[in-house]
């Protein structure tokens, strides 16, 4: 696995997500570009690499986000582990599976984060928050074909298992 490429992808995602929000948002919906990266590495790498990449993605998101530092890394590691453990049951090579899985797990981790925020501040409107989570997850899932294409271009999946 090419770690340098991974960190370059992560840097690009961080820059894109933190600066070009005007270009990628549709109303309230802002896609989470980090999450497809977590899904991609959970599908293609071994346990240890998956955990490290999920953690790095979470830390990158934490760096450019207001709120508790480290919370996204914990959530991403948890979701990455969950995905890694169920990937054997999935037909993970198919695009539809990738989209659906990204959507479902994005819903799960965003809901966990919303609960964490609600407990911390007691300021979220439940219905609006659910709606935001839903459309953001949907938007993220729809970006999966493009994102996976890019990741595959730079990190061909067949190369991951060379060093195993």
């Amino acid at each position: 696995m090419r770690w340098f490429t991974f960190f370059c992808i992560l840097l690009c995602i961080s820059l894109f997500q933190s600066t070009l929000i005007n270009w990628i948002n549709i109303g309230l919906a802002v896609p989470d570009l980090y999450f497809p990266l977590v899904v991609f590495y959970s599908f293609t790498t071994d346990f240890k690499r998956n955990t490290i990449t999920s953690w790095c993605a979470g830390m990158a998101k934490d760096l450019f986000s207001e709120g508790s530092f480290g919370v996204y890394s914990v959530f991403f590691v948890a979701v990455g582990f969950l995905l890694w453990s169920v990937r054997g049951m999935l037909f993970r090579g198919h695009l539809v599976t990738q989209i659906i899985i990204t959507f479902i797990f994005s819903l799960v981790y965003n809901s966990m984060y919303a609960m964490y925020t609600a407990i911390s501040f007691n300021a979220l409107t439940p219905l609006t928050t659910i709606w935001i989570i839903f459309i953001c997850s949907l938007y993220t899932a729809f970006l999966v074909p493009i994102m996976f294409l890019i990741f595959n271009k730079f990190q061909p999946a067949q190369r991951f298992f060379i060093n195993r």
Partner: protein
Amino acid sequence: MRTSATSFSSIIKNPITAVIFILTISFVLLFLPPRISNQIRMTCAAPVRPLQLAVCFCSNSASNFFERVITAWHDAYDKSQAEEQISQFKNKVVEQQDTIYKLQNKLQSISGFQAENKIDKRKPIPADIIGYDTSNLRKSIVINAGSKHGVKPDNVVVSNNALVGRVVTAGERNSIIQLITDPGSRIPGRVLQTRELVIVEGDSTGFCKLKYVPKWAKLKRGYDIVTSDVGGYYPPSLPVATVFESEIKSGNLFQSVKVLPKVDILKIESVLVITN
């Protein structure tokens, strides 16, 4: 005999130990006091800030350029306006126009602010927005002014004389601003027309909520909310938002009021940090 470095690498090679190790780091960071964790965040993100600034500048320039192109295309239907615009576009290079436009905006906001606050000793610091929050449920921005320019934590941030938020972390050259729409934001306010005291609370959407509005308060759409001098934290009479809709639910102690912030953060490129 094994060295300590070798034993550490052998520990890390074990997947379970590696996972426990990185999760421990996350939890330690999570339970650190906010002041320390924010400092770590600012330090770690510092190398990326110039890149952020460059990308943001390019994005804004491109956005302005496309906006002008679209405007010009729309205005082509109206001949007189189109002729004026074409003559303007011919005489000016797009990039220069963009720079002039930005500087004019900054100058106007500074002079406007100073004209209205002559008695105050508050000093505004102009800053450009260089980054936005990556989270869907938190609302913050990064600006290119920091402690080196005089910005301190808890300074108030305004744009067009309306409240944008407050500084939560001030790095050397950059600062993180918590917007009024962030779920963690609470602002003591007052309804301009009825003089009711309220708390303006963010809820991670484009709107905010008013807390503790009594049921008998008659709020209408378009009423203004300004900062109150309660607490002495925010400068008084700073416009915050306008009432969008209010609803009285039976059984609730207070009204449920939705307000629209005066400043649309996605439509501004620069802000003023008020230091005192």
